[in-house]
């Protein structure tokens, strides 16, 4: 064996046993990938928002905050911001209420639970663009099954035929329904995990002390699953707030841009309109909410570490 090869195998052997270096070598590829493919594009996005980048431009010039002034001077931007907030808040409210009820109903054992859970998980696991296509058909202006059923049951009058995606208010409601539909499964399984982790002793003690159903639920169970419910809410906020797929498939932002959200408006401005700088500036308005959510995650992580 040559001296070089010997030295190398000696180095490899030392590395294989030196924990400090071993950990660094094992972590480096993942961290490098994340820096190159999350960190770098993010910084680039900041830079674009301060430049005159378009799809065609070869050189970028720094133009300060002009893009932000420009997008904020546009009424569609403010409507998108409002839609994003309204859709997120309303849908998350329903997600949490529904998921708590459903998780409680799924707690006990019953026959066919595996199949029920499969049915309930479908909206979450199916690609959201395809789930949205299913809803597009359900909301169809001529063949909507909701309208047919409503008329058949007498809930809708014989001459009432809502055009779900053609009216701004109904279209926003349709988008909210789809977001609730998609996120209830995730929130349910997360809350279910929280409920299953409560020890039976606590429930027994509450029963012995004579707590009734409501008291038991609101004063004992709810506070115990609060942290995990918060986790479900945070994921729900991220997935709804930053989503453009639902709007893109259902309405393309229409009618007349009345259902645009920040993410879809960034897409239509930046990619379809070729105004990369404007699109980057719009999408960066998603960032403050992400930071807030990240901070809350850190708080939860720290608290659970201490207790």
């Amino acid at each position, binding site marked *: 064996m040559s001296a070089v090869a010997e030295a190398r195998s000696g180095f490899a*052997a030392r*590395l*294989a*046993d*030196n924990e400090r270096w*071993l*950990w660094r*070598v094992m*972590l480096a*590829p*993942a*961290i490098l990938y*994340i820096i190159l*493919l*999350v960190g770098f594009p*993010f910084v*680039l*996005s900041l830079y*674009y928002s301060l430049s005159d980048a378009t*799809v065609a431009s070869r050189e970028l010039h720094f133009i300060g905050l002009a893009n932000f002034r420009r997008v904020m001077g546009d009424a569609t931007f403010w409507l998108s911001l409002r839609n994003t907030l309204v859709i997120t808040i309303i849908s998350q409210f329903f997600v949490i209420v529904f998921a708590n009820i*459903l998780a409680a*109903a799924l707690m006990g054992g019953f026959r066919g639970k*595996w199949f*029920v859970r*499969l*049915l*309930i998980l*479908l*909206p979450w*696991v*199916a*690609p959201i663009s*395809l789930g949205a*296509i*299913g809803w597009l*058909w359900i909301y169809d202006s*001529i*063949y909507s099954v909701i309208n*047919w059923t409503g008329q058949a049951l007498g809930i809708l009058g014989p001459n009432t035929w809502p055009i779900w995606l053609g009216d701004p208010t109904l279209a926003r409601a349709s988008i909210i329904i789809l977001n609730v*539909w998609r996120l*209830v*499964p*995730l929130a349910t*399984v997360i809350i279910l*995990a929280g409920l299953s*982790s409560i020890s039976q002793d606590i429930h027994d003690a509450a029963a012995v002390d004579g707590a009734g159903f409501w008291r038991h639920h609101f004063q004992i169970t709810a506070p115990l699953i609060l942290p*995990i419910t918060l*986790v479900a809410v945070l*994921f729900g906020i991220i997935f709804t707030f*930053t*989503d*453009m797929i639902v709007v893109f498939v259902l309405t393309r932002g229409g009618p007349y841009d009345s259902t645009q959200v920040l*993410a879809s408006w960034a*897409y239509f401005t930046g*990619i379809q309109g070729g105004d990369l700088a404007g*699109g980057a500036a719009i*999408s960066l308005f998603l960032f403050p909410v992400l930071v807030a959510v*990240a901070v809350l995650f850190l708080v*939860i992580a720290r608290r*659970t570490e201490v207790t």
Partner: protein
Amino acid sequence: MTPATARARRVAAAGGHTAILVFFITFLAFPFYWMVITTFKTTQDLHDTANNPYLFNDPPTLEHLRLLFTETQFLQWLVNTGLVGIVVVVITLLLAIPAGYALARMAGPWAQTLGIGIFLTYLVPPTILFIPFSRIIASLGLQDSLWSLVLVYPSFTVPFCTWLLMGFYKAIPRDLEDAALIDGLSRLGAFLKVVMPISLAGILTVVIFAFTLVTQEFVYGLTFITSLRSYTVSVGVPTFLVRGDVYFWGSMMAACLIASVPIAIIYNFFVDRFVAGFTVGAVK
């Protein structure tokens, strides 16, 4: 409480329980039920507003499936999704397994901070990054190539999978490795020969999770890919099964079912493990 009222209460509780489940199953699974019905109905039946949409007014047909597989690129899209999925899963495992293990075994407060830091990058959404990426991909000459997706998708699979694997490795007792070290294996050898074989279940979970994320991705696919042949299922179906104003509803619904139900069945076996990852250790 008399036995009769107790029984009445039990029946009422069971009835309420069933009613809640029926409501939610209807809400959550109805679109998929509706896809099944639509897939097998004739176009004429679908488009006759006088018909009861819940019934097969014409005999069921396989025409929509035939059209989907013979006259569209659906099969190609399935193959593309599968190929991208497999390569992305391999890249994800190569990066996330060592990183997850290192984070699980590192000593000191740094490990925790670094782990959470990596996890938080999962929260940076494609809708912030797709605009700079569109230019990066173009300057790399990868536009309209599946390689663009292979390059970019690990940016969201790696952070979450590293986090999941860190949890799995933390659950494996250190004693096993210590015993292996005493037996003369190196630190790395202990990981490869002792830890890897018993963490296969965790690795399989990560494979399913990463693959599911790939099939669900839409924004990057829509931005980078421009030709019919190179689409993945999640982008191709909503974009190209609509010609002009003509919606091929039967074929679209069939495509949605084929692309989502099999994965959901596999996912259902692993869901508890994903939840453990999602809950950031908030459940103990």
